[in-house]
């Protein structure tokens, strides 16, 4: 578990630390030719920066998990679904999955379900800019930018893409 990051740190510094952490991890595990995939929309913003910092060879992939949500019959179809794009085959490839905030874990479950419909990845590493309490599924991140201790009615929100800003908001 990474140390909580102090308030003065900017997001760009956070992302630089995450990039260093991720690079060390990939090298230690000898994971080459990995495919980085960002989850729409916030995760993709973070992924774009990490992708540039780490100089990944494979182009960045993007996932919109709207078709995989487990609350579809309750909240209905989101009319603004962006197509998912994975530029190369995921079969036997190492996937670096990037999201903005890890909360219940349901988004990550949906994203993994979708990834497996593209093929059978060799492994998936989860990278998140922030994580908070409230997990409903046994899912944890491998690389975390910052941990948030939040009250019951508080949420973390990432706004962007320029500049990226994290804020804690009171839920209605």
């Amino acid at each position: 578990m990474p140390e909580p990051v102090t308030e003065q740190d900017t997001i760009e510094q956070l992302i630089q630390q995450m990039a260093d952490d991720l690079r060390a991890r990939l090298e230690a595990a000898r994971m080459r030719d990995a495919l980085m995939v960002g989850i729409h929309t916030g995760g993709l913003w973070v992924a774009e920066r990490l992708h540039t910092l780490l100089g990944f060879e494979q182009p960045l992939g993007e996932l919109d998990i709207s078709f995989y949500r487990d609350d579809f019959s309750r909240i209905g179809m989101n009319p603004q679904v962006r197509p998912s794009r994975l530029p190369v085959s995921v079969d036997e490839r190492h996937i670096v999955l990037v999201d903005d905030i890890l909360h219940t874990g349901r988004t990550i479950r949906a994203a993994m379900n979708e990834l497996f419909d593209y093929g059978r990845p060799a492994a998936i590493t989860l990278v998140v800019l922030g994580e908070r309490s409230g997990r409903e599924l046994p899912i944890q991140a491998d690389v975390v930018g910052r941990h948030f201790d939040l009250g019951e009615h508080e949420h973390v929100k990432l706004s962007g893409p320029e500049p990226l800003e994290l804020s804690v908001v009171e839920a209605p």
Partner: protein
Amino acid sequence: MRQHSLQHDSEGRLHHLLTIEGLKRQQIVDILDTAESFIPVSDRQVRKVPLLRGKTVVNLFFEASTRTLTTFELAAKRLSADVLKININTSATVKGESLLDMLHNLEAMQCDMFVVRHADSGAAHLIARHVAPHVSVINAGDGSHAHPTQALLDMFTIRRHKGEFAPLTVAIVGDIKHSRVARSLIHALTTLGVSELRVVAPKTLIPAAVESLGVQVVHDLDAGLRDADVVIMLRLQKERMQGAMLPSEAEYFSTYGLTEEKLALAKPDAIVMHPGPINRGVEIASSVADGPQSVILEQVSNGIAVRMAVMSMTLGRAPAEGESA
């Protein structure tokens, strides 16, 4: 008949898709955008998304169809729905059970959607008026009235090739009178606001007062094709014609058939469309149907994504007040 409000729920969302008439421009654009997001699903290892898992879709085809039936079935399966095809010729309606009795039986089996193709205009509307509130009805073609998903997949195909609708000149050529596709196309193209919409046919194949829909009637094929961006050929519907509307197929081809020579009158980058099945040598020459400007087979593949969009949007509404989920 309250056709226009029948297909929307109390919050203005699409509950049934019965006709293009009454759809707002933004609603059509939303369907096309959703269809676009389903396109990559067909290129994956698993060509399925779990959106409609646990839902049951019934294809009720009272009239022969290959393309429409197959693409509706594929669309439902790619959304992970269970699909049932009722073969009407061997079903209980032949034994004297009424259509509505059959529908209520299917509802009792917890079916969620009826996709209806019928030779009578208004059949899908009739069914939509009588189904339980949670059931959605999609019109897959009723008589010579409407074929909304065909028009939507044509809009999708045009948008993929041409981008914007506003600058386009579109020519719909052939049997306008008997064509439900033509009617739905005219509503879709005028709602999306093309610059010029021509219907090109002999007088006997033009319905009365069609100009009131905002189209220009042209009887001469050369004039109709000149500088067109999109040419939509329609099938000569011999089975719906009564009496002598045409001299002969050969003569029809010589005056209204699309040949390479005639197509040269349209813009050089014009696309040629046809809802199928094509009558080669009657309304279109084989060299054009199979030629570089033809997007006829693309229309078929696009039909899957567009039908996925319509099914997921109608069944994927958050339940409205007083409606069971």
